[in-house]
């Protein structure tokens, strides 16, 4: 049996009295593209942050390539994170740097590559996401939301990661740009053969980029299966979510009228 690329078992996280993750189990195989769907505040981002080591889970185990990553030291974490690229929801570009310096950041600061060499790779990756050289010297502040996401994607794939995380890749941009980003994600992951984990609440995006979908609800994975099976899923929570119905088992944290 192959070792899963990412292995989560019984991951729990609470903030004060609020339980956000209540035993998340999920295995992601090498080369697979998994999407976690779930409503706002269901703990999707917290799951990602626990895997990245930005948050420390209260209980449970997280393994990357069979190696436990909970509570490891800063050096070991840097080595693990060198395998991981991440596209943030708001792109999280460094606004003190130009576009190409952003794309080259992981190479220069993380891997210690020379600026000249890193710039060549950065321009190549920027071209891959459809940004030509005239954007390279611009400041991220001068770009639109969709453009920023593209730069964020170029930055994530520049270090040629084995694993890529996408945090709400289509949120906050128009549907056409969203679809372009989806296609870029599919193209980039196919070309690099990376394992990807995406969190989103955009079903169109989830269907397009995933091999498997997992539904996170009340801190647990309530359903997981191949993308094609989701419409036939025998789970009221999943059915309510994918059809976007207001009525159903999912209760939003609102006061009833």
């Amino acid at each position, binding site marked *: 049996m192959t070792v899963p690329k990412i292995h989560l078992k019984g991951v729990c996280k609470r903030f004060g009295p609020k339980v956000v993750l209540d035993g998340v189990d999920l295995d992601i195989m090498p080369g697979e593209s998994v999407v976690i769907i779930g409503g706002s505040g269901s703990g999707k981002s917290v799951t990602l942050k626990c895997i990245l080591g930005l948050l420390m889970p209260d209980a449970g185990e997280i393994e990357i390539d069979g190696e436990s990553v909970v509570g490891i030291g800063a050096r070991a974490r840097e080595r693990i994170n060198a395998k991981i690229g*991440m596209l943030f929801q708001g792109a*999280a570009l460094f606004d*003190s740097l130009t576009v190409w310096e952003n794309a080259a950041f992981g190479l220069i600061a*993380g891997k210690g590559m020379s600026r000249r060499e890193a710039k060549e790779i950065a321009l190549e990756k920027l071209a891959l996401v459809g940004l030509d050289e005239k954007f390279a010297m611009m400041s991220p502040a001068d770009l639109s939301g969709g453009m920023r996401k593209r730069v964020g994607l170029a930055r994530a794939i520049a270090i040629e990661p084995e694993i890529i995380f996408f945090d709400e890749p289509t949120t906050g941009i128009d549907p056409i740009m969203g679809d372009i980003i989806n296609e870029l994600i599919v193209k980039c992951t196919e070309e690099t053969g990376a394992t990807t984990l995406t969190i989103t609440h955009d079903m169109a995006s989830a269907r397009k980029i995933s091999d498997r979908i997992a539904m996170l609800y009340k801190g647990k994975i309530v359903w997981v299966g191949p993308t094609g099976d989701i419409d036939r899923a025998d789970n009221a929570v999943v059915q309510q979510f994918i059809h976007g119905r207001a009525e159903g088992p999912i209760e939003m944290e609102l006061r009833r009228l």
Partner: protein
Amino acid sequence: MTAVQTIGRIFLAFLEIVGQVAVFTIVAVTHCLRPPLYFRLIGRQMMEIGYYSLPVIALTTLFAGMVLALQSYTGFARNSVGAESAIAEIVVLSITRELGPVLAGLMVAARVGSSIAAEIGTMRVTEQIDALVTLSTNPFKYLVAPRVIAGVVTLPLLIIIGDIIGVFGGYIVSIYKLGFNPTLYLKTSWDKLYFVDVNTGLVKAAVFGFVVTLMGCYQGYHSRGGAQGVGAATINSVVSSSILILILNYLISAMFFGT
């Protein structure tokens, strides 16, 4: 809730913050001392913290020296004591020992501490600090260490320049307004100035540079909740570093001159 519970809760919250600051300081200092260092970033921060603060510091110390000469002359005139040599001494000692470092420290806290807190705070709330971590870059090494090192190195340099300009301010008022003898004034200033006076000023400057940059980084690093959080971090950085500057200034003075 009883009064005891309230006091206990406030005290515990206070201890928690003290602990958090202590841990942050230790981690920051280790990253300042342990290679690799980003020299390019240190250079940029030295420009930002040192060079661009020069006009503000020059103006502050110039007017401090001027008003000092003016007011001490009034005091001496009332008591009809020989003012000429005393004023030069008062100006040069006050500026180098106390006013130079403290005023410059406060100006830098307002100018640099706030901008560090706002910049790092914005990076925190827009996930740029998380992005650094995912790109295998330690935020302490990349953001905190260059600023702290630049603060500790450049503030003493700023103070030396500030001291000279402050003494010059006193000189201008004494010569052109009060009609003193220029040669005598400069000679007294030089004679009355000992190494320890300048030395304490420089020790203070290095400590203040450390406090201002560290508090800016700490407040920014721990900011939460969007624009409002960044605003709060900015305020807290200026207030906390200003208070620390005044307290530490007394302690260092007591240490050097307190016999």
